[in-house]
C-alpha cells in the first residue's frame, strides 16, 4: 500500500472541507472496499479522512413517517433495526443477503452505495479497464462476461453494480442526502448511480468532496408488501447473478362477487421493481412497472410486464442466461408477494407482508 496521511474529521463540514480541498483525498468509513482497493493498487489516495466517528450513525423517523438512515450506520445494525424489519423488509432481506456478517459489521450505509464493481478486469490492475484507467479499453468485451450487464451498458463498460442494499433502496424510492462544499443536496437513489456511457470511471453523480450524510426512506402506504430475492452461484457470501427487489400494494378486494365461482384476482395499485446484477446501477424496471399498474395480479400479467422490460436487454456472450433468470425471478417474487397460486394463475390468499427472515 502506498503511504498516505490519515485524519479524523471533527464534523461533517470539516470532513467535506478536508476532502474537497485535496484532489487526492478520500473519505474513509468502514474501509471494506476502499482498503482492499488500496492494497490492490486500484485506489491510491494520498489522504484519508475518517468519518466513522462522526454522528452520522443514527436511524431516525422522519416527520412524514419515513426513516432517515445515517451514512455510517453499519449494515448489520441497519438490517437488524426493528423499524426496518417491520416497515421495509425488502431492505433488511437485501442487506442480509450481501457479504458476510464480519463485513456487514464494518460496512456502512454510505459506503455500501459507493462500493465499486467486482468486475474481474476492474480488480486486476494488469488488464485494461476504462473504469480504472479511462481510455485504456474494456477487457470484458472480449473476455469472460458471465457476471456482466445485460441492460444499459456501453461499449466502454459492461460492469454491474454489486450492491444488494442499493437495489432495495431503488425500489423504495429512497433519497440520498449529500453535504458538499457549497451546501446540502438530495438525489433520488435511482438517479444517484450512473450508467457507464463514455465515463465509466464515474459510478455516481457525486462530485469530489461531496459526502453522503444519510439515506431517507419515504413512508409506505398501509398494506404495502415488499421482498428481495437474490440468485447466485452459492447460497451465501456471493454476489448476485440476478436480484429482484419488489415493493407493491394491491387494491382492496371489492365485494361484488356473488360467492359462486372463483374470485377475480385483485389489481395491482402500485408497484416498484428494481433489478440487481444486470446493470451499472440498480435497475428500476419502469417498463415492467408501467405494464403492471392497475392490472390484475396474474402470472400472465407478470410475464408480459417483465418481457416489456427485457425486450431492451442486450446480453453478452456468456450471460444470455440472465435474461431468463430475471424473467423467472421477477415472476416468482411477484407471485409470492401477490399470493398467486402457480396452478390457478390467479390471486389467492395474499402472502403476509413480505418474509422477514434473515
Amino acid at each position, binding site marked *: 500500500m502506498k503511504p498516505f496521511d490519515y485524519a479524523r474529521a471533527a464534523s461533517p463540514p470539516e470532513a467535506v472541507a478536508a476532502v474537497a480541498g485535496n484532489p487526492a483525498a478520500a473519505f474513509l468509513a468502514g474501509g471494506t472496499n476502499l482498503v482492499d482497493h*488500496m492494497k490492490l493498487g486500484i485506489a491510491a489516495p494520498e489522504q484519508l479522512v475518517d468519518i466513522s466517528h462522526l454522528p452520522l450513525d443514527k436511524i431516525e423517523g422522519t416527520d412524514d413517517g419515513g426513516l432517515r438512515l445515517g451514512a455510517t450506520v453499519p449494515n448489520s445494525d441497519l438490517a437488524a433495526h426493528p423499524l426496518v424489519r417491520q416497515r421495509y423488509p425488502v431492505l433488511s432481506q437485501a442487506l442480509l443477503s450481501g457479504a458476510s456478517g464480519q463485513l456487514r459489521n*464494518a460496512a456502512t450505509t454510505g459506503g455500501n452505495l459507493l462500493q465499486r464493481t467486482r468486475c474481474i478486469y476492474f480488480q486486476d490492475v494488469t488488464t485494461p479497464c476504462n473504469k480504472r484507467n479511462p481510455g485504456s479499453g474494456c477487457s470484458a468485451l472480449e473476455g469472460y462476461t458471465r457476471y456482466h450487464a445485460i441492460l444499459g451498458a456501453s461499449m466502454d463498460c459492461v460492469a454491474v453494480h454489486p450492491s444488494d442494499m442499493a437495489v432495495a433502496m431503488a425500489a423504495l424510492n429512497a433519497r440520498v442526502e449529500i453535504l458538499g462544499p457549497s451546501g446540502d443536496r438530495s438525489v433520488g437513489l435511482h438517479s444517484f448511480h450512473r450508467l457507464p456511457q463514455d465515463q465509466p470511471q464515474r459510478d455516481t453523480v457525486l462530485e469530489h468532496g461531496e459526502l453522503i450524510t444519510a439515506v431517507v426512506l419515504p413512508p409506505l402506504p398501509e398494506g404495502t408488501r415488499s421482498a428481495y430475492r437474490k440468485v447466485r452461484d452459492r447460497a451465501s457470501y456471493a454476489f448476485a447473478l440476478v436480484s429482484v427487489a419488489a415493493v407493491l400494494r394491491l387494491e382492496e378486494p371489492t365485494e361484488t362477487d356473488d360467492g359462486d365461482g372463483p374470485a377475480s384476482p385483485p389489481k395491482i395499485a402500485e408497484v416498484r421493481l428494481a433489478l440487481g446484477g444486470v446493470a451499472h446501477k440498480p435497475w428500476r424496471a419502469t417498463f415492467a412497472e408501467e405494464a403492471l399498474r392497475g392490472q390484475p395480479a396474474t402470472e400472465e400479467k407478470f410475464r408480459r410486464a417483465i418481457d416489456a422490460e427485457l425486450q431492451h436487454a442486450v446480453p453478452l456472450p456468456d450471460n444470455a442466461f440472465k435474461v431468463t433468470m430475471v424473467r423467472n425471478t421477477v415472476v416468482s417474487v411477484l407471485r409470492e408477494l401477490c399470493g398467486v397460486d402457480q396452478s390457478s394463475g390467479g390471486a389467492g390468499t395474499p402472502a403476509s407482508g413480505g418474509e422477514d427472515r434473515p
Partner: protein
Amino acid sequence: MQISMSVNGNEVTRDIEPRVLLVHFIREELGLTGTHWGCDTSNCGTCVVLMDGQPVKSCTVLAAMADGHEIRTVEGLASNGALDPVQQGFMEEHGLQCGFCTPGMMLTARALLDKNPHPDDGEIRQAISGQICRCTGYATIVRSVQWAANHPVGSAATGDAADPSEAEEVTA
C-alpha cells in the same frame, strides 16, 4: 501517528504508519500471532478479531481506525487460566485440523454465542459463512460451536480447566 486501543483488556499505545493494517499491528507490533493473516482481501476470515464485540476482518481495517476501540483476539478468549467454551468445544469436537482458520472461526463463534446463546445449526453456518475452512468440511466446526453453546461459561461441564493445575498448563 500515535494510536491507543484496548487489546484483550490491556491498553496499548504505539507509533505507527497510517497504512499499517490492524492484523499486522496485532501480529507484529504486539506480538500476538494467534491472529492469522490469510488472503489479505477480506475473503477468508482467518484474520477475524472482535472490535467492540463485533467480528471484523482485521486485514481490511487500518490500525488507525481501531484507535480508541476495544479489540479482542484469540489470545483473549481464555480467562483466568480456563479455556473459553468455544476453545474447549473445538478440542472436544475436532473443530480443526490444520488450525489456520481456527482463530477467526472461534472469535466469530464467541460473538455469535454472546448474542444468541442457543443458535441452531443454520444460524451457526450463517455466522461463519464469511470464513473459509479447507479441512473440516465445516460439520465439526458447527458441532464445536454447539458443544460450546451446551457448556456455557460457569457451567460445571465447561471442561477440565476447572482444575487449577491443568488450567495453568493451558495458559503456559
